[in-house]
């Protein structure tokens, strides 16, 4: 436990640029890098941390409890993908928590104060701070460990607390602070200003026209629409997210949904979640604000993992009540989304599954025949929402060949992509690849067994990180969103004969793959 942490290139994220720290008004904004010998900490940093711990202990029962009840049974030890991938003992969830717990013992418990090291208490030192940074930014807050813990100890909570504490001293990473500051400034994490936002939407309209012959309409900031649609901004700026966007747009057009995008709430993803309560709340607030201003009835949310963690478990609590909205009802099927009665935000997989169940869509599965598909449960929609069946129901209806990965690696037991919780940077690629190893190997398994060549998922970070991961470990496997496959299969009224899929590649009628289908 006492080995000094070594910042090896490729395993940690870089510090945040001062400009963005200042924009968000973060404490002790300064140029700072984790590998620096001298972290330039304020002289009273110890008091700040201990005072901070005290505040958090008083605010979060989860924190206090999880500090006290671990029995070190080790059930969680080999459940973390970072431990499986790196073999670093401090990546065992129990030890990750112990890094903080040992300090808690020293300053907040009687036995720790008296017996010190004998009972596993440690004095706070700069070394420990560095260790916190290293290991709390090697946790994707995926909550897999919590599933196996007999007391439900959630190391994600502990990582969140650890990060909150580091923030007090201005130790943040670029890949969280920059997107967060962009979101705050422009409305979305890529920093896309409204003009460019509009232009990309027009670009999507053109592309759909080319593919289907249909000119669709993309309403932006339209007052009085029935539904506000919020998606992660990567959907309209990155690939392969882009094809999912085309899928959404085609679907909305086809069913005639009266909806609108918002150029202000143009980001669902919430990088604040990986930083602190305050930042999460700050970034999330604009969604309800826009819903109110645009006088919509309810909100529909796109494919994104951490956006949905926030919507499902935090949004109503931090920025609600949403009493200016109505209980969501699908205008097409009349279904009441009772499970979203209070928050008034419906997940797009729920929305589409309901459409398919009521036979409102004409789907030609064979258009996806070149894909042998498997589904990666994003940890947030899995373990923090329980959204398992809807996406699978959709997949079974839009493609002919869908195979599950081994059951220890899907649904509630799903393995993270290794890049969540703000770790999807470039500089820590080695850590990401190691962390994503279990997921990649489950994919490799189904690739060899069933010929899987497409991994569908519902998370923007997954779509960004999985392609690299699979290229490294597996090879020959693509990544897509659920709604890309929906868009491919969707037979639109008045469409011309489709020859290309949403990626602009020739639509296969399944002929060239017949041999794979045994």
């Amino acid at each position, binding site marked *: 436990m006492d080995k000094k942490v070594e910042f090896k290139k490729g395993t940690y994220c870089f510090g945040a640029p001062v400009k963005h720290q200042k924009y968000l008004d973060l404490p002790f904004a300064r140029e700072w890098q984790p590998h620096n010998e001298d972290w330039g900490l304020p002289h009273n940093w110890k008091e700040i941390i201990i005072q901070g711990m005290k505040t958090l202990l008083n605010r979060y029962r989860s924190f206090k409890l999880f500090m006290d009840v671990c029995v070190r049974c080790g059930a969680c030890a080999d459940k973390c993908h970072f431990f499986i991938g790196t073999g670093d003992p401090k990546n065992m969830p129990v030890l990750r928590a112990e890094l903080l717990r040992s300090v808690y013992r020293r300053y907040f418990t009687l036995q720790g104060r008296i017996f010190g090291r004998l009972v596993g208490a440690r004095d706070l030192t700069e070394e420990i701070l560095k260790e916190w940074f290293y290991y709390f930014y090697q946790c994707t807050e995926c909550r897999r460990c919590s599933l196996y813990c007999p007391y439900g100890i959630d190391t994600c909570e502990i990582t969140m607390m650890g990060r909150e504490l580091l923030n007090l001293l201005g130790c943040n990473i670029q890949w969280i602070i920059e997107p967060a500051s962009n979101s705050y*400034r422009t409305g979305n994490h890529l920093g896309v200003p409204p003009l460019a936002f509009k232009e990309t939407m027009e670009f999507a309209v053109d592309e759909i026209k080319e593919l289907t012959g249909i000119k669709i309409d993309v309403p932006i900031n339209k007052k009085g629409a029935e539904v506000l649609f919020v998606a992660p901004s990567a959907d309209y700026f990155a690939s392969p997210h882009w094809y999912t966007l085309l899928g959404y747009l085609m679907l909305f057009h086809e069913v005639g949904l009266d909806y609108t995008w918002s150029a202000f709430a143009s980001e669902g993803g919430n990088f604040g979640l990986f930083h602190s309560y305050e930042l999460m709340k700050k970034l999330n607030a604009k969604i309800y604000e826009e819903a109110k201003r645009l006088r919509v009835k309810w909100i529909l949310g796109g494919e994104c993992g951490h956006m949905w963690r926030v919507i499902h478990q935090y949004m109503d609590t931090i920025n609600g009540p949403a009493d200016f909205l109505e209980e969501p009802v699908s205008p097409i099927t009349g279904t009441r989304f009772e499970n979203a009665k209070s928050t008034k935000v419906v997940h797009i997989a729920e929305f589409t599954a309901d459409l398919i169940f009521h036979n409102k869509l004409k789907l030609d599965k064979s258009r996806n025949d070149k894909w042998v598909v498997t589904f990666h449960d994003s940890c947030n929609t899995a373990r923090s929402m329980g959204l398992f069946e809807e996406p699978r129901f959709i997949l079974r209806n839009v493609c002919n060949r869908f195979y599950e990965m081994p059951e220890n690696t899907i649904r509630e037991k799903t393995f993270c992509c290794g890049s969540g919780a703000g770790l999807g940077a470039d500089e820590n690629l080695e850590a990401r690849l190691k962390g994503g190893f279990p997921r990649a190997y489950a994919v490799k398994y189904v690739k060899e067994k069933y010929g899987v060549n497409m991994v569908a998922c519902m998370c923007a970070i997954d779509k960004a990180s999985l392609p690299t991961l699979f290229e490294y470990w597996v090879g020959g496997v693509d990544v897509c969103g659920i709604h890309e496959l929906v868009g491919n299969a969707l037979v639109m009224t008045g469409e011309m004969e489709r020859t290309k899929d949403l990626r602009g590649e020739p639509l296969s009628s399944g002929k060239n793959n017949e041999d794979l289908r045994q």
Partner: protein
Amino acid sequence: MSTKLIYALTFTIFLVTIPIIGVGILKLEFLFSIVVPYLALAIFFLGSIHRVVLWSTSPQPFNITLSAGQNKSFRWIRTSYVESPHSKFGVILRMITEVLLFRSLLRNEMVKTHESRWLVFTPKKGLWFLAMIFHYSLLVIVLKHLRFFFEPTPFFLDLILRIDKFFELSLPSLSLTEVLVLVGTVGLLLRRILSKEIKYISLFGDYFILLLILTLVLTGILLKHSFRVDLLDVKRFCIGLFTFNPHVPSKVGLTFYVHLFFVSVLLVYFPYSKLVHAKGVFFSPTRNLPNNSRQKRYINPWNYPVKVKSYEEWEEEYRDMLKEANIPLDKEEKGP
């Protein structure tokens, strides 16, 4: 062997010598049979209450339940009532199976990276099994002790005693629970010593509690078999303790004092160690909250406001661009 284990062993031996010296040499029977147990009980009760108060005074700000099954959504999708409960009833079921059957532990599986770098999963129920027999045999043993506190012995105790006796092994005349608790304790201890990972995460306290219980069990067995003690005297002592009518037992021997002293140590240790997990499990927010956070608003008592950027500010900042993009504005002209 790990140094922590050596410390724990030394400490346990040290604790054994205290009553031996105290009663055997210094003849402090009153201190060890009356003062220490009362003190220990007081610390146990106050400490336990204090701990629960500590937990309860911090609010649980968010509904962070862990969904381990399908959330309730449409009528045509099967909901997982226990693994992702959306009602109180479901939560209760989840908690009961968690507390009584160690449900999460039952999920345990071992994952190993194979030479070819495959991941191999093997179910690992050993820990669950050890934990079950350990906790349940301890429970039965504690219940069995109640016979010292009640006159006449309640019928359910009689039943337990008889069942337990029924399985009694002739040699060396151990009852079923005694065998099980030994297997459980030694098994858990061996696990900590033999498994590399578990050894790495183990602390002094993790070894100590097992050694403490082992000592308790061994002295208990000794009391029952080798050094016959006057059970009536023990009963008088116990009833005396709880009717605040203290009686110093005289026909019991040193082993009894060691046993009693360890019970006291356990009571004192309980609220200040990882043993609080016994109460903590009921408080666990990942298990005791329903997965209905979109259906019912969850309240955070300290939900303080933060500074946000409003739409007006944003519109002001991007006014020209919004105009150019033909995106409708709230205010047509620049604000004052």
